[in-house]
């Protein structure tokens, strides 16, 4: 009897604890007590490491910086390096700022930068092919980099967040594991704590080399659910929420405390045609399929106006973006081209050639939900003129495209100019064995342009060559560029001097403020 009563009491007690503590205010908040200015940022990707050489989060959170940064016009500009010059085709000299210290107080000199770059090359397998560093020499604030082959794109490659400059001396003190949770960089904020996939807390670094940050603390939180991010913004728990669902934007626009920033990013959504499939080798077929892409409906119906129709890999906001006409949807012309290519309707109204119906396997994936919708729209338009499109949704699109040959088209999304330069995408998407070329695309006469681009250092000439390469590519239609999706960010109006950048690199800055 007594024992039963005791058990019941324990259960009741546990329930009460949960209810009472659960409905409390959630613990004391130091920033409220000390009246500190704090900003809460909600990011859409989960982050399980703050190793700056394997994650972009430390740079986005304002904890680390790179030698070179992208300016508002998407051009490389000085950051930790104040200037650089090409001494000979394979030797670059970078002059570093003299007044920069790491968060542990140590001075940032050429030796520290050399050690940091060496660490990044060791920690990140993907860096070496872009940097092509053969050796480095440090002397005071001057860093000399010798590349294994001429690498005119080196300054733009040093924009890559994975080349962020960190203190290897601090890493040696605390060990790599601890360092990767709390890296020591040179940014306006230093990391105070990190909970993987949940939150990084940062505090202002008082010894920052440029104008110190305008507020005291940052809570950089991660949540992959767009609805939760939106509700966190609406309930004033978050000041900035990244990548909100386009269909929910109207609700935010009615809130007097909130604003929505919709900016064209550096991303392009497109269709890749598999050049290994015989029917896809016919340019008339590719042109016909390109005409079946209804970009206007994608922009208005799928993206709710938060995108621009695409006419090439690079958006117009880039200096080398294509300013030509966007291909308009035209199913009649598409049908005409297919007739020319030998496809005729059979008794069922389906197009066929030599008795074989035209059937297309379209690969898509769910990570970006709009790609699946684009695939469905394409399927529906193709069906109207008698083309059967079978949509296949795969989990890992890269693995699928590389390991299978039977696909005809794939929806894809790329950051086409991640460092404000066209070289990366043009090489990766159009060279044989390129990282973004699973369809084995080979465009006639493109290689001389690419070779010239890869050997050119002058930024203006590089832009001109990129533009010329794109117009050459467009004649062959190896891809159908669909849209440039906007970056949708919800912002509380108490945040000042801030707008999301197209590059999505520099989110927390020393210039922004909260009222």
């Amino acid at each position, binding site marked *: 009897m007594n024992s039963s009563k005791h058990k019941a009491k324990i259960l009741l007690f546990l329930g009460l604890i949960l209810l009472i503590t659960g409905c409390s205010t959630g613990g004391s908040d130091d920033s409220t007590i000390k009246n500190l200015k704090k900003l809460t940022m909600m990011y859409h990707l989960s982050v399980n490491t703050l*190793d700056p050489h394997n994650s972009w989060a430390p740079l986005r959170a304002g904890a680390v910086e790179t030698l070179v940064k992208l300016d508002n016009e998407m051009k490389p500009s000085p950051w930790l390096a104040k200037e650089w010059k090409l001494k000979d085709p394979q030797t670059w000299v970078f002059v570093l700022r003299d007044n920069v210290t790491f968060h542990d107080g140590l001075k940032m000199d050429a030796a520290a930068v050399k050690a940091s770059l060496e660490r990044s090359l060791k920690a990140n397998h993907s860096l070496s092919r872009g940097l092509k560093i053969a050796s480095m020499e440090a002397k005071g604030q001057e860093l000399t980099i010798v590349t294994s082959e001429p690498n005119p794109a080196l300054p733009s490659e040093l924009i890559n967040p994975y080349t962020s400059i960190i203190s290897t001396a601090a890493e040696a003190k605390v060990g790599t594991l601890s360092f990767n949770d709390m890296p020591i960089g040179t940014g306006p904020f230093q990391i105070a704590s990190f*909970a*993987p996939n949940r939150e990084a807390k940062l505090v202002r670094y008082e010894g920052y080399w440029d104008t110190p940050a305008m507020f005291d603390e940052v809570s950089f*939180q991660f949540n992959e*659910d767009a609805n*939760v991010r939106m509700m966190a913004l609406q309930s004033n728990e978050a000041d900035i929420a990244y990548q909100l669902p386009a269909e929910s934007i109207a609700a935010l626009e009615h809130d007097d405390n909130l604003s929505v920033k919709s900016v064209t990013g550096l991303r392009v959504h497109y269709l890749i045609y598999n050049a290994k499939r015989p029917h896809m080798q016919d340019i008339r077929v590719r042109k016909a399929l390109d005409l079946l892409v209804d970009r206007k409906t994608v922009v208005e119906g799928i993206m709710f106006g938060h995108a621009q129709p695409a006419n090439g890999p690079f958006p117009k906001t880039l200096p080398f973006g294509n300013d030509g006409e966007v291909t308009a949807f035209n199913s009649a012309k598409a049908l005409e081209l297919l007739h020319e290519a030998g496809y005729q309707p059979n008794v069922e109204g389906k197009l066929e050639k030599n008795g074989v119906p035209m059937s297309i396997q379209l690969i898509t994936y769910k990570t970006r939900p709009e790609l699946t919708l684009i695939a469905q729209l394409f399927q529906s338009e193709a069906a109207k003129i008698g083309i059967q499109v079978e949509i296949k949704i795969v989990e890992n699109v890269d693995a699928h495209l590389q390991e299978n040959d039977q696909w005809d088209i794939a929806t894809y999304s790329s950051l086409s100019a991640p460092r404000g330069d066209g070289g990366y995408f043009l090489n990766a998407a159009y060279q044989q064995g390129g990282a973004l070329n699973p369809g084995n695309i080979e465009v006639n006469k493109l290689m001389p342009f690419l070779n010239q681009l890869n050997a050119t250092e002058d930024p203006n000439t590089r832009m001109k060559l990129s533009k010329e390469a794109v117009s050459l590519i467009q004649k062959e239609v190896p891809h159908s560029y669909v849209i440039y999706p906007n970056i949708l960010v919800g912002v509380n109006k108490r945040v000042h001097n801030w707008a999301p950048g197209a590059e999505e690199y520099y989110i927390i800055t020393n210039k922004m403020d909260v009222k």
Partner: protein
Amino acid sequence: MLTIIKERLLQLVIVLFFLSLFTFTLMKLAPGDPVFSILRADEVAATTADEEALRKELGLDQPIYIQYTKWMYSIMQFDFGSSLINGKPVWKDILERLPATLELAAGSLIVLLVISIPLGLLAAKYEGKWIDHISSILALLGASIPAFWLGLMLIYGFSYRLGWLPTMGMGSAAHLVLPSITLGFGLAAIYARMLRAGLLEVLVQDYIRAARARGVGEWRIMYKHALRAALIPVMTVFGTSAGSILAGSVIIETLFSWPGLGDMAIEAIFKRDYPVIQAYVMISGSMIVMVNLLIDLSYTWIDPRVRYVKERIT
């Protein structure tokens, strides 16, 4: 009882061996490998030559049985290896996330008990009355409402509209409330119905009638005599739910930014991070077997007749 424990621990070793063999083979047969994730971090992709070189470096080009043997050899020395994606020792990742998983499991267990036991008792006591109907409706809702929708509605109501609880995160007890309710509610409603069915079966037994004849109060009969007997089938089924509670629910962890083991496992599966997947399978497999062992042992506490039978067998 000691014999039962020894038998179960031996079974655990066998279960874990086959579990690891099965998952390892299945993961290797599935398309894709971690090379794509390692080289293609944050959008910037690699060339096929880079991929081949890294595959060789990681030993992923070797036959499956060699890879498995190497992994098993390390496990025998209690070395789970390091994540292929971020290089972190796997045990560190698991130890970092285990407390969050246990906290969420405890929270949802409390929700489960607080809702299911009173509701089950009331529904059995007032069979066919309004409270019984409410319990039926709740069970139906609990079984049919998707966890992500319930979670979003709770956030909408308690965080956005009322502002009582945080939308997401972890730290204070307040953060635990919504994820615990989201995970515990679906199970609680079903368990309440199971408990009700068990109680109704027990309440017509002779010993209950005898207790009534002796003038024992109805609530005391319910709590003291019927509940214990009715709990045995409920506990048996609970053993099967333990997996979903302990391994965490990925949807709930994603929704509430709750850094538990489920979230870690899904990320590892998507990126084909084999050492993490294998360690997760071993740890969650062990926990589920241990919970079931504890449930078996709890029968002796719930119903003394079980203890008598076990002792006689041993």
